[in-house]
């Protein structure tokens, strides 16, 4: 599939309460496999998806953290996280499982405005 479209995937929901985050991740990896030009933005409660040391076996779910660690293998390289959302939740970047780039809301606005389509999860 050839495309020059830039697709922004926004992730704003908590990881394990429903399978929305897992299915958003499935969609993200699939987009990567289909060679789309993807930018990921974790904001709001979506930042919880990026926390280190997730051990979800006991709640009978696959670890989002482990799958997130596969991003590079699925050609997903632009990953941003909202600094303000982290701060509001008292999470430091050292607690994150990936080296996502921290952006202020204003910087996120700029990233959004360069996309051609948004998928909101």
């Amino acid at each position, binding site marked *: 599939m050839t495309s020059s479209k830039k697709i*922004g995937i*926004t992730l*704003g929901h908590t990881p394990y309460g429903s399978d929305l985050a897992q299915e958003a991740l499935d969609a993200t990896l699939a987009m990567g496999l289909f060679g789309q030009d993807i930018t990921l933005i974790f*904001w*709001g*409660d979506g930042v919880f998806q990026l926390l280190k040391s997730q051990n979800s076996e006991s709640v009978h779910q696959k670890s989002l953290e482990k799958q997130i660690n596969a991003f590079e293998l699925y050609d997903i390289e632009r990953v941003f996280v909202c600094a*303000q959302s982290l701060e509001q939740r008292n999470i430091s970047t050292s607690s994150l499982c990936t080296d996502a780039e921290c952006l202020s*809301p204003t910087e*996120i*606005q700029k990233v*959004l*405005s360069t*996309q*051609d*389509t*948004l998928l*909101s999860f």
Partner: protein
Amino acid sequence: MSHSILHTVNQSPFTHSALQQCLCYAQESDSILLLENGVYGALLKHSLADKLSGKKCYAIEADLKARGLLGQELTPHIELIDFIYFVELTTQHKLVQSWY
């Protein structure tokens, strides 16, 4: 294109942070559309009403009507629209971000 993002919000600001989130990332040139339970955000005096009044804002009239809100005090600058106009708005904005 004068506007960049149309933000849709379909959750009540009294139980959910969707509207607050939306206001955090919406730029001057963006627009906000309240629909479904999001139309409770059109009520005049909730904590985000002031911030909302600085933005170009629309609400689905049928959703306000369904919830008995048309007789209540609403933020005056919110424009009441139907789905035809909703479609029109999506053509006028480059992107749509859905908050739910």
